[in-house]
């Protein structure tokens, strides 16, 4: 009982650490999990459907899996990439607000790329500055004999100023751009890339199924010795249409 409570608490802490600052990351992770669960439900639905024969399952399950792989990969890769680009726009100072620019100039934080130097990372530099202040403060407080209350107060004020700026000005701007990037990536992947790929995939499968039907029909008519396959056991295009419509919720598979 205690261990299960600990696991639950650990889960909550891990979720808090991961998502309490980053709405974009939460949307990306839950979106991907959503796609995985949806695909799993589709496959589970087919596996447990008694109305679908074994032969049909052999065809529909790999198709669903391929469809799921396309959906999940397209969503994660496109959304993650655009989200990262949006984040980079803020951190490199390519997109900047007057408040961030003013703070950077006042406090010597690089926000423009200088030739031959690394691309600036405003957020990281603010965090590094705070770490520097904190370590200096720790050292000051340890050296009791040399303590200078004025310097200590100044350092504490600087730490508060940097932290406040990061929490109230920089992080909401960077986080907002990340969410916009996430939304844009999701729209492109879910509403443009995935439907086009699915349409192509479904059309290819449909043509393949029709060709198989025709071949089977020709073979049946040419060879008098071929045992006759009962119609209900064949998997034709009409079966394909109706089964896919009934079993799967993939929008483009008809």
């Amino acid at each position, binding site marked *: 009982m205690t261990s299960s409570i600990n696991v639950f608490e650990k889960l909550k802490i891990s979720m808090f650490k991961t998502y309490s600052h980053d709405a974009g990351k939460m949307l990306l992770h839950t979106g991907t999990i959503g796609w995985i669960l949806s695909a799993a439900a589709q496959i589970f639905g087919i596996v447990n459907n008694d109305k679908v024969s074994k032969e049909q399952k052999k065809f529909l399950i790999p198709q669903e899996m391929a469809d799921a792989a396309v959906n999940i990969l397209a969503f994660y890769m496109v959304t993650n990439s655009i989200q990262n680009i949006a984040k980079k726009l803020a951190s490199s100072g390519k997109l900047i607000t007057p408040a961030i620019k003013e703070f950077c100039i006042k406090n010597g934080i690089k926000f423009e790329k200088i*030739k031959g130097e690394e691309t600036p990372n405003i957020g990281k530099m603010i965090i590094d500055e705070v770490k520097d202040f904190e*370590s200096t403060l720790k050292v000051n407080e340890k050296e009791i004999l040399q303590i200078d209350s004025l310097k200590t107060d100044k350092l504490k004020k600087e730490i508060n100023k940097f932290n406040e700026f990061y929490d109230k000005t920089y992080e909401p701007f960077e986080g*907002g751009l990340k969410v916009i990037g996430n939304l844009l990536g999701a729209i492109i992947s879910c509403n443009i890339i995935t439907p086009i790929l699915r349409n192509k995939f479904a059309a290819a499968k449909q043509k393949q199924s029709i060709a198989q039907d025709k071949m089977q029909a020709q073979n049946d008519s040419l060879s008098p010795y071929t045992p006759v396959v009962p119609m209900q056991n064949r998997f034709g295009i009409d079966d394909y249409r109706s089964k896919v419509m009934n079993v799967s919720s993939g*929008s483009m598979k008809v």
Partner: protein
Amino acid sequence: MNAVVNRINTPAKNIQRDIPSRASQNRQHISISPTFGGTPIEIKSKKLIDNIEKMSKDFTSAHNRLILGVTALASQPFFDLYNNDVDEKTRAVSCARTLGKIIAGTTVGVLVRHFSIKASEKLCEKGAKEVKGFFKNYKKWLLPKTVTEPTDKEIKKYQKAVGTFLGLGVSLFTNFLIDAPLTTYLTNVFNKGFQKKTDLSTQQQIEGGKK
């Protein structure tokens, strides 16, 4: 990280330090060398900045699902209707299916996420008073107990994340119980509409041919 370690090892040198060295170095860069790579784009509109910041603070997965649904409605049916790889009948059926799926999926998805987030807010209240009885402390069930002094902003984002995960769990059931039958119903409705339209246009073509 090395810089931090060095500073701790040589305290006397750093006690003299008023402004951090990294900042002063950069300040020199800014004043000495003004030849920068890319020109930053400065967003001056306060309204736009406020809206960007609002996206970080208030945007939830329910909003996300709604926007995705609306944009899907505006794009996906057209991919079906103009899909030259399949015959006309298949195009109409797949378009009807897509419309049904988007409307059912978006409606259920938005509602489930919205109410899951609301539920997580009730189960994760910072500074909630103790309640007597069997469900005592239910307002703190989802609150991480060992995190010290979380800010309101952090709690708000955490509530949204927990709510979205709860919503995903609920969606597993609603997918089968509501989405699937509603999608089938809507598909049939749209399919009938498309068939009527196709029959009408075929009839008009025949009549036009006779003339």
